[in-house]
């Protein structure tokens, strides 16, 4: 069976894909919270800066961003290895989309909650961390789940900056064997299995967050 001989190489590629995806989701989430919180809570300068970041990275192609980081940045003396470049590029992209999720959920916390916090004399940080974020984060989770899976699929673009991820391996095998149907079917199955795992993981995190936030979502008067 030919396809069995493809598996070791594809599995190695899948590991690279998994690593890049997970690292980008983690760094991207940190960026998303930083930029999203800056948009809602920051002063004019800080929130404008965050807005610029979000719009620039949402408004340009990820592939071109990766090319820019990989081919143009070294010209000004900054060069990273391909995997780092891939993770940086994807993280910035995820962070930009994620910041909109964070901003939206934070803004959706009722004004009355902030007023109650103010009446109890909470400071701004305490209001954000203990009152607003715990309520907002529950609302963010489904959208973050989507974004995580999107990140996995977008990660295939890093094959174009010479990273040997799953897509890259698939291309290489196909170029040698010309067995397109088998190779690409296996590749699709590989992505699907990984996204399945990711989906389950996000569900689990969502459930943990919901339990951590603890409130039963009963009908609200």
């Amino acid at each position: 069976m030919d396809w069995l001989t493809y598996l070791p190489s594809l599995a190695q590629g899948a590991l690279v894909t998994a690593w890049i995806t997970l690292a980008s989701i983690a760094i991207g989430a940190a960026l998303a919270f930083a930029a999203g919180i800056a948009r809602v809570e920051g002063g004019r300068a800080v929130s404008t800066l965050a807005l610029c970041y979000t719009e620039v990275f949402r408004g340009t192609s990820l592939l071109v961003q990766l090319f820019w980081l990989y081919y143009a940045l070294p010209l000004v003396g900054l060069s990273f290895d391909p995997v780092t470049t891939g993770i940086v590029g994807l993280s910035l992209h995820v962070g930009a989309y994620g910041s909109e999720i964070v901003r939206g959920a934070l803004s959706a916390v009722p004004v009355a909650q902030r007023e109650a916090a103010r009446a109890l004399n909470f400071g701004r940080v305490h209001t954000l961390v203990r009152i607003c974020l715990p309520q907002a984060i529950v609302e963010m989770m489904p959208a973050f789940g989507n974004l995580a899976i999107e990140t996995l699929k977008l990660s295939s673009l890093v094959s174009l900056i010479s990273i040997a991820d799953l897509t890259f391996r698939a291309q290489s095998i196909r170029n040698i064997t010309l067995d397109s149907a088998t190779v690409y079917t296996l590749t699709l199955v590989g992505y699907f299995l990984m996204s399945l795992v990711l989906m389950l993981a996000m569900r689990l995190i969502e459930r943990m967050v919901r339990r951590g936030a603890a409130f039963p979502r009963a009908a609200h008067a």
Partner: protein
Amino acid sequence: MNKVLAQQPDAASAAATPVIEFRGVTKRFGALTVLDDFNFAVAPGEKVTLIGPSGSGKSTVLRILMTLEPFQEGQLTLAGIPYHEPHGKGPFRASDRHLHQIRSHVGMVFQSFNLFPHMSVLRNVTEAPVAVLGLSRAEAECRAIDLLRMVGLADKKDHYPAQLSGGQQQRVAIARALAMRPRVLLFDEPTSALDPQLVGEVLGVIRNLASEHDLTMLLVTHEMRFAREVSDRVCFFDKGRIVEEGEPERIFTAPAEPRTREFLQSVLG
């Protein structure tokens, strides 16, 4: 029936240094003037009810006192502290620290309770004393349980707000405000969001509070019978000013101003 009133005739309460004093305060929302050259003083321990048609500025008075809304002109002092600082910046013309100091004397009970949905009842009541006043969790819980007992909800301490009725939520909100030991407690239509059969339990708690504590209370309400019963003074608002004020008996039985009479006729039927 009203002991506080008996001990504190109007002349004496006016002579005491007021805990709240508005002098010529003007508040605008854009082109709309909500409070117009507003003058108002409240003596320590006094229970004052603000009545009047909606949009007349009653709630705005409370929201300004709680520093939820800034005002543009005039002077406001709380326990002798002016709200505006001489070189204060921003809409409140005061630093965060200054506002923090003012707020430490005031508490507020909101129309829609505004409990924190992700915290248990106990946590709702202990969060601020721990985070703001620096009480230990044990002290704060001790204080919270006492207050929850007072509002009759000690057995619900581990429930979440969504598991309580509106009346119970509002009683928790009262306990939460009291846990900060304010000198002035503001009630912004505390029973307006409640089903009629739940109004009584909340009014009962406020009534006990009024008769047993030397807390200064400002109450915006549409419950006229209740206003008459608990307050030392009733102020009738119209168009951003107090049109008429006085002892509840007089306001409700013999209002001098035609606008007061009209309003009372419309709400009392």
